[in-house]
């Protein structure tokens, strides 16, 4: 089966909430609202759903089926692991549709940070014999761990904090027009450098926003999608996987030198471009997973938008400011909303439908990446 054979036919989302403010809704109530909205957007019925795809340990499909009254599932799968698989749900959904296992797959992603904050997730490692080996160093969150990567990138390639600032300022410039963005106010270089350092070389602005929301995407065959309500957005390519030399990412930290100072996306980038025959210069919109600003720079390198080690100079040249290479024109997770990569998929769809708020003229191809995190990493190219 050659791709694209599957397409995104519907998108649904709850409002975006600051961390904790989605209460008293439960995460399953938010998921239900997102699924209903996505099905309605596609012009389908809840009863049409026969497949579900999740990532990062996922959700209980049974609970969603029961609450929404979905009659029968013939496919329910989760991209393995905790980390970089967000774009991989599109790979699973496309596989289900291509193989005939399901006709209408909803891809679901959601987060709700009540009590436990994701940024302190390493602290839970205290309970494991392996995890405690890092915890005794004072390390307690992925941002701190990825600060080690950013620090080494600066040392190896001369990358400057001005480059991280560029990523944040570009994100904020886009967010200014986004009604739902959590951080909308434009940011100056002076304000960036005045911010408190959280994990040197990262300051507060280098960390993504902490938010609650649920999003859902309806995937069906490209052929069927053409007869539905919305302009179909084809899944041109989607991959998940990764190499042992990236492994558990910031939980391991023993990558070979060149991989250590990367986003770990080399393997999935190569596979995705190989599968589709698309090159970086073909991409109109790049939705790069931006939980921490330096990782945008490292992904620009891994996905071939600039050479290895030149990401800092690339963004400092103004290359990703509005009007340049369109990177996260929704404001991304740094400024708009963090829903473990799901808002990137939504923005890709809106750009390709031509309905985005910060519309890139005549956008035809969008790259969506999963988080630089333990493998499987993931990425997808969507197109019209």
């Amino acid at each position, binding site marked *: 089966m050659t791709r694209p054979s599957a397409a995104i036919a519907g998108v649904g989302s709850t409002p975006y909430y600051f961390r904790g403010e989605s209460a008293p809704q439960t995460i399953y109530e938010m998921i239900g609202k997102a699924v209903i909205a996505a099905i309605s957007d596609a012009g389908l019925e809840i009863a049409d759903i026969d497949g579900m795809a999740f990532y990062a340990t996922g959700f209980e499909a049974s609970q969603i089926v029961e609450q929404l009254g979905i009659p029968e599932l013939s496919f329910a799968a989760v991209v393995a692991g905790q980390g970089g698989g967000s774009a991989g749900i599109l790979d699973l959904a496309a596989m289900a549709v291509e193989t005939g296992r399901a006709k209408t797959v909803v891809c679901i992603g959601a987060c709700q940070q009540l009590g436990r904050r994701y940024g302190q997730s390493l602290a839970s490692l*205290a309970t494991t014999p392996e995890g405690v080996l890092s*915890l*005794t160093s004072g390390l307690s969150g992925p941002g701190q761990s990825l600060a080690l990567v950013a*620090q080494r990138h600066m040392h190896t390639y001369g990358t400057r904090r001005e480059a991280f600032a560029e990523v944040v300022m570009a994100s904020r410039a886009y967010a200014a027009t986004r009604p739902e963005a959590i951080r909308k106010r434009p940011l100056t270089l002076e304000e960036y450098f005045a911010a408190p350092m*959280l*994990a040197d070389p*990262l300051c507060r602005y280098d960390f993504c926003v902490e938010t609650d929301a649920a999003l859902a995407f309806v995937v069906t065959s490209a052929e069927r999608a053409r007869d539905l309500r919305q302009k179909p957005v084809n899944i041109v390519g989607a991959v998940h996987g990764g190499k042992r030399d990236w492994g558990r990412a910031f939980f391991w*930290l023993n990558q070979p030198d060149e991989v250590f100072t990367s986003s770990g996306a080399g393997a999935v980038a190569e596979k995705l471009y190989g599968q589709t025959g698309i090159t970086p210069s073909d991409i109109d919109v790049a939705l790069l997973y931006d939980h921490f600003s330096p990782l945008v720079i490292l992904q620009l390198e891994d996905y071939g938008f600039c050479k290895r080690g030149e990401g800092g100079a690339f963004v400092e040249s103004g290359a990703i400011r509005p009007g340049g290479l369109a990177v996260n024109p929704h404001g991304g997770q740094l400024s708009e909303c963090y829903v473990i990569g799901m808002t990137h998929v939504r923005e890709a769809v809106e750009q390709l439908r031509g309905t985005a708020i910060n519309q890139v003229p005549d956008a035809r191809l969008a790259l969506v990446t999963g988080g630089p995190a333990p493998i499987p990493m993931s990425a997808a190219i969507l197109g019209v």
Partner: protein
Amino acid sequence: MTEITSAPDISRIEIPMDIWTTPFWQAAAEERLVLPCCGDCGTHRWPPGPFCPACRSQQVNWVPAGQAELYSYTILRPPGASPDEAAPLIVPGLVAFLEAGGLRIMAAIVGSPVGAVKIGAPLVLGWVPKGDTRVPVFSIDLGS
């Protein structure tokens, strides 16, 4: 005033062990830093675990870690600390062992002027008591 790096508060951390990490902590109790090395092919690995990733052997030799240098680091100020106060500076360091094929472990960089904390700096091993064992920490070797 030169700021000096501090050890993190590990009083609330418990150290669970399994059969693959116990030898590390047993040696640490005697202030010996040892790393797992495959008993068949000689490949170092971290963290300690049941297989050599190069040859799948389950034989392990625990070998002295040897000379250490700083591979990367971050600087943390504990939450709530005001920038005006002399807040403790916590520096989680990624420490590389040259004689162990560059193998890296995380350890706090303590008792060092923050300005001397640089990638590539040679390190001196130290220990912090913790329950029945000790936790390895490092300081910058200012004598070199």
